[in-house]
């Protein structure tokens, strides 16, 4: 089982790395990070902060775009090219195919994030003329961004397991947007009464809580991020991704591929 999973995972990774869309986006993200110092020259005294804001936001935004653009094609491309039938005719279970695809894309996104992180720190080194210990806190924000990727990938895979690529992309983008306002949904449910309260609470639990995973502004302003938040966000991202991937597996198991 491990062998089959790792084969699908590495194959997905290799395919994604060869994808032109991926290269374009990575190049664009790196370019954005590289030009960040230019933004700083038109502001006074906040060059470093602008670089952190723009750089980390670029890593997050482009990672999410890559996750969705590649994620929507993971299942549909295999069906279109009829390679899925070759894979499933071998002793590969459907859940192994889905989980392998998921892990492959997560690996791709993590490698991309690490590459962009390297570019970000190089730009930071240029702008601030050296690195200090407080700048290590930016790694927490990057770690949370990777946790975001776990969730976005799982959701994209879930949507692509039952809908067309275009709809899967729309659903995924919509959930990313709604997820950034997850805390407001919670606030609405706390203030609402009766059925509306339960509906809002249900919606708040169902949509991914991206607001808690975004600490870019916090670290850019040297605000501390608690250890308990790191632990809980990790647990949350893993459990939510597991739930979404399980739902994707359930749907894919029942899908008629003939």
């Amino acid at each position, binding site marked *: 089982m491990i062998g089959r999973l790792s084969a699908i995972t590495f194959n997905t990774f290799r395919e994604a790395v060869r994808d032109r869309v991926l290269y374009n986006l990575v190049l664009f993200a790196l370019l954005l990070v590289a030009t960040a110092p230019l933004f700083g020259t038109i502001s006074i005294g906040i060059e470093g902060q602008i670089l952190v804001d723009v750089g980390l936001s670029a890593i997050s935004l482009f990672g999410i775009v890559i996750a969705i653009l590649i994620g929507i094609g993971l299942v549909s491309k295999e069906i279109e090219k009829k390679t899925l039938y070759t894979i499933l005719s071998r002793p590969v279970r459907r*859940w192994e195919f889905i989980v392998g695809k998921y892990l492959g894309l997560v690996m791709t996104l993590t490698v991309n994030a690490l590459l962009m992180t390297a570019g970000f720190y190089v730009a930071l080194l240029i702008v601030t003329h050296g690195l200090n210990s407080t700048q290590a806190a930016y790694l927490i924000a990057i770690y949370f961004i990777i946790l975001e990727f776990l969730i976005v990938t799982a959701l994209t895979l879930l949507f692509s397991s039952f809908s067309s690529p275009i709809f899967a992309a729309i659903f995924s983008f919509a959930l990313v947007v709604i997820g950034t306002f997850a*805390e407001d949904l919670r*606030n609405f449910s706390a*203030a609402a009464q009766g059925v509306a309260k339960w509906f809002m609470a249900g919606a708040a639990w169902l949509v991914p*809580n991206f607001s808690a995973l975004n600490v870019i502004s*916090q670290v850019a302003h040297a605000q501390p991020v608690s250890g308990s938040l790191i632990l809980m*966000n990790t647990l949350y991202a893993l459990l939510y991704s597991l739930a979404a991937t399980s739902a994707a597996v359930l749907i894919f*198991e029942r899908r008629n591929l003939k």
Partner: protein
Amino acid sequence: MNRATFITVLVLIAAFTGSVLTSNEVEAARGQQATLEEVMYIPSGKALKRMSLGYSGVLADIYWTRAIQYYGRRLGRHDENVRFDLLYPLLDITTDLDPHLIVAYQFGSIFLSQSPPVGAGQPDKAVALVEKGIRANPDYWRLYFTLGCIHYFDRKDYKAAELAFRKGSENPQAAAWMKVMAATMASRAKDAETAYYLWTQIYQSTDDKMVRENARQHLAAFRVDHDVLELERRVTIYLQRTGHLPSSWYDLIRERLLGSVPLDPADHPYQLMPDGSVQVQDPEGLPFITQGVPPGWKKSTK
């Protein structure tokens, strides 16, 4: 259902339940005012308006809802651990995003102007907010009324209050009593009746539950302050007649100084103390009273 499907369903249920439980822990770890503190990171409403790509109305609604959720709940229960430093920036951003969001000026200025623990105790900032509202909405006369109330109640600047009521009364849509208020400010600003009249106008003119409740509490406080002084006056009459203090309200009823046991606005009987003073039973429910407060009593911060 085969074994693999059964296991997948189990995993799905367990993972989703776990994510819901963990999500609550995440919020606990973030702190109650996480989204509120975001106003410190992008403190410019104008910048936010550009970033909202034309959806500034929605963003204003979100900011306003955050203000209501956070401050409404805490101020309602007289919580002392409130981030008042974030209130004005939050309202300023909200009204930059939507300059016509009247409720943000009216309600927000009440939060800002009243003294802690029921407000931020920043009447000058409240004035700045309402004046900003008047600039953006010059035809809305009620903002002049709000401005006059802040000058009158919280800044004790009766001249400025008179000016605000007078300016508001010049609007053809304005209620007739705005002229009366302007005249009253000029002649009898320090009278308790004037304050009572203003709170009555606020109580009657608002549809907002929280503003109405705030006005009701102020009106209740006027009644308690009046009742306590009047009851203590009658206790003094009893003392002069009998040579000793009454042991209960029934002593005063027997002396025909009272018709029945006196009740406060919350329908609790006033308490007659052994030294002849009068106290309310539940000062927590009457946050603005100045008379009848038990000695040493402090508002709870639950």
